[in-house]
């Protein structure tokens, strides 16, 4: 099973902070496409993805228990 985290505008749009979903074996790109469709999150394409708190590339493959987070353009500071 995997935990998927949403932040900022994505979190508001999804209506939740996180979901549990088994996406192991899928690429980051595939997960993005699935989540975008399932939750109506078109803006997810502008987001980076983190796997276990580290930025990931779109062809990185999700492992069992990985925590995935979608990172919209940041605006701290």
């Amino acid at each position, binding site marked *: 099973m995997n935990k998927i*985290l949403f932040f900022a505008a994505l979190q508001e749009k999804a209506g939740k902070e996180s979901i549990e979903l088994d996406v192991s074996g899928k690429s980051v790109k595939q997960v993005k496409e699935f989540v975008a469709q399932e939750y109506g999150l078109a803006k997810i394409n502008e987001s980076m993805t983190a796997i276990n708190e580290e930025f990931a590339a779109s062809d990185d493959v999700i492992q069992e228990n990985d925590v995935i987070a979608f990172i919209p353009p940041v605006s701290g500071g």
Partner: protein
Amino acid sequence: MSKLFSITEEPISIEQTVSLVSSRNAGAINTFIGTVREFTKGKRTLYLEYQAYAAMAEAKLAEIGQEINQKWPETKTAITHRVGKLDIEDIAVVIAVSSPHRGDSYEASRYAIERIKEIVPIWKKEHWEDGEEWIGNQLETKSYRKGTPSEEDLI
């Protein structure tokens, strides 16, 4: 508040962040304090809301600290970023960099704030009289993984 790189929900003490980097070897401490500004491009902000992916944000702040140590080996850096609701004039972030000589402390401090705006998962929501919005990348670039901020960003 004794961690060098931290996300906190409490008001940030400047003195405390500075004390984390102060040392007998330092002759200079540069501090950057980011505060909530009332007007941006003529539009009045009522308050801000900051959200962070806290664990990853602290890891990325520490990574910026490592980058700084490689570029300016004699410096010591501490960064504290606040999250939650912030009013006008409240402090959102404090960066403190100590170094034996002043030049390094200025350069490293500037580098830190630019990198925060590139790679640290923290988001700001502006609340105006007539609406609200999560603010996107203020560097106006979508490339997050450039090694360093561009020259232009630093001037």
